[in-house]
């Protein structure tokens, strides 16, 4: 019998019951809740007169539509101008209070984007099953946890039964071998992967990211990679546990205490795929071939290197591709064969659960340091992923660097990643964004999103158009990834 993959192990450790029809009940260790996908789940519980199964498995924080300006935030919930957003955040508070679920409220320093908060608190641990009503839950897979994005009915199901009804996926391994070039970050790696396998390439698979370039990433970088697994179609992204993982977790509030720590670490060491494990599909990329990436279209797979150009739709062989590329260029207001470095920008967004952790802010700050945001940029904003990231950044003086360069320094939340609060793009505006989705209208009606790394976003802010972060004069930017 061949060995098990990491995904197989996690699955087997949580399997409560296999049903004859191929579905299974798997036990859920952690559920993260936010204001958008939980109200209907609580409503459902109440309507059916059910109680949460295990309160301490849940942790909540509002993030999707909290305002991010300092002024509005000072007022707490009442600073939320949009009445519907206010109702959602208020409803989360009420539900958590009613049921006794731990919540980091709007102005708690621990509040932030769920996918930043969970790991930061040690509420995401290796070997856990983690769910959240948000498709970027795969982020937590960076810790060797089995993390699923789920829908609202499933949120209710997990709350009521502590189990998820799931079907085992197939195993895919994406290997990135070699050493990343200077100025090439985790974001570029994952965009390059999506560019290669496509947005449906991972559908039906749990993807394990492996190889020497992945192993060399920090936890922040690994989270960035797993975060975008869903953009490659996979509900689950995973990375094996190693010293980097374990070092990150020591002393976090929810992490095991002294007496359990050793036992936990010993257990976590097994959370790797066996040498003889069989994957249904293996894809390999060479790290040296990856350059800083920029998306040019309306799907994350529509991406290319900074030295590249917008493709000519007519050059595509498949007719469906031709049509979707044509439509994408039309929406994005770009010409076939236009150089990526010729794309001018209106707004810059550094933030989101993909790239709003301390390391991301450090990379961007290195590029911004001593420079000025170009006059042609209407708005450049930096939105930390959590209150604690914000504090850390301020302790390091990053906020000053950003403010001096002309960036706005905001309060934590999802912000312009999905534009549910007041932060959004106007029609036709181009934005260099460190978020994860460039769908039509994602960052505002008619808005044009280009996905990039934090360093590339900062460089674009200064130049007013895309530039190769590797070509910048000898400031520290090119060493950003080593931070």
């Amino acid at each position, binding site marked *: 019998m061949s060995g098990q993959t990491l995904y197989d192990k996690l699955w087997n450790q*949580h399997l*409560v019951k296999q*049903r004859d*029809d*191929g*579905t299974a*009940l798997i*036990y859920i*260790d952690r559920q993260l809740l936010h204001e*958008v*996908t939980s*109200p*209907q789940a609580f*409503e*459902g519980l109440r309507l*059916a007169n059910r109680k949460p*199964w*295990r309160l*301490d498995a849940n942790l909540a924080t509002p993030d999707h*539509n909290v305002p991010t300006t300092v002024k509005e935030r000072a007022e707490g919930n009442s600073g939320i101008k949009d009445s*519907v957003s206010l109702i*959602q955040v208020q409803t989360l508070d009420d539900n958590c209070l009613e049921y006794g679920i*731990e919540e980091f409220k709007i102005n708690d320093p621990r509040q932030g984007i769920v996918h930043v908060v969970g790991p930061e*608190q040690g509420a995401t*641990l290796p070997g*856990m099953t983690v769910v959240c*009503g*948000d*498709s970027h839950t795969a982020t937590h897979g960076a810790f060797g946890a089995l993390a699923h*994005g789920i*829908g*609202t*009915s*499933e949120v209710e*199901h997990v709350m*009521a*039964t*502590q*189990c998820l*009804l799931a079907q085992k996926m197939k195993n895919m391994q994406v290997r990135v071998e070699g050493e990343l070039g200077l100025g090439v970050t985790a974001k570029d790696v994952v965009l390059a992967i999506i560019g290669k396998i496509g947005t*449906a390439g991972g*559908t039906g698979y749990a993807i394990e990211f492996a190889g020497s370039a992945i192993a060399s990433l920090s936890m922040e970088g690994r989270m960035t990679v797993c975060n975008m697994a869903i953009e490659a*179609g996979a*509900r689950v992204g995973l990375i094996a546990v190693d010293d980097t993982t374990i070092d990150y977790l020591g002393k976090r*509030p*929810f992490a095991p*205490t002294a007496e*359990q720590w050793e*036992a*936990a670490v010993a*257990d976590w060491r097994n959370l790797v795929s066996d040498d003889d494990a069989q994957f249904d599909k293996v894809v390999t990329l060479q790290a040296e071939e990856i350059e800083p990436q920029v998306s040019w279209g309306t799907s994350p797979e529509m991406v290319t290197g900074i030295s590249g150009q917008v493709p000519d739709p007519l050059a595509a062989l498949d007719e469906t591709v031709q049509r*979707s590329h044509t439509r994408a260029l039309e929406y994005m207001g770009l010409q076939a064969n236009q150089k990526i470095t010729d794309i001018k920008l209106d707004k810059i967004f550094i933030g989101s659960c993909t790239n709003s952790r301390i390391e991301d802010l450090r990379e961007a700050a290195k590029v911004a340091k001593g420079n000025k945001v170009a006059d042609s940029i209407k708005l450049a904003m930096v939105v930390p992923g959590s209150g604690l990231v914000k504090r850390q950044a301020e302790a390091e003086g990053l906020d000053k660097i950003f403010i001096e360069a002309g960036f706005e320094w905001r309060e934590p939340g999802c912000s312009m990643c*999905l*534009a*549910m609060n007041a932060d959004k793009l106007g029609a036709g505006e181009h934005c260099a964004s460190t978020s994860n*989705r460039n*769908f*039509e*209208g994602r960052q505002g*009606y008619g808005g044009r999103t280009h996905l990039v790394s934090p360093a590339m976003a900062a460089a674009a802010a200064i130049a007013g158009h895309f530039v190769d972060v590797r070509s910048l004069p000898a400031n520290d930017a090119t060493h950003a990834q080593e931070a």
Partner: protein
Amino acid sequence: MKKFERFEGVVAPLDRANVDTDLIIPKQFLKSIKRTGFGVNLFDELRYLDEGQPGQDCSQRPLNPDFVLNQPRFKGAEVLLARRNFGCGSSREHAPWALEDFGFKVVIAPSFADIFYNNSFKNGILLITFPEDVVDRLFTEVDASEGYQLDVDLENQRVITPSGEILEFDVDEFRKHCLLEGLDDIGLTLKDEDAIRAFEQKHKAARPWLFRQSA
């Protein structure tokens, strides 16, 4: 959940690949804390010429005459015919809620995104996967005849075209059972309450750190 019964319904064709959930129901409408009322904003960006706001009276908004659901011949459509990778993007369950609230009971496409697939069945919508060439043919047929209807028979896992052609489809037994019986997932799972408790005990004994709260 209502029981899924055999029906004959008008088919509306949406000729576009990779229709994502942002397109099905734009994010400004996600702020509701209810489960109903999303139908008027289904495909909002394609359907109306202006930018929609939550809580707005949609009957006053300018319609995009080119959009299929605005064309009189597709009025009352209950079957949506779509292209590959339908429902990709975010996990929002508002997408199936909006489809259902609008009146769609079935979506037919060559492929669907995973989360959307799950969410749809959980909300009583049947998703049928047909090979690309069959979907192509259905597009041609719908285009050619006004009032084109399909007879959808989940019990026997088949769709019957107006010309009497029978197209069989696969569907997972459990999902089919739940749809036909109108069963809710939670009630079903709670039948295994004892097994869950037993597992939980064992799991906690083996890995107590997974059950720890913050200090």
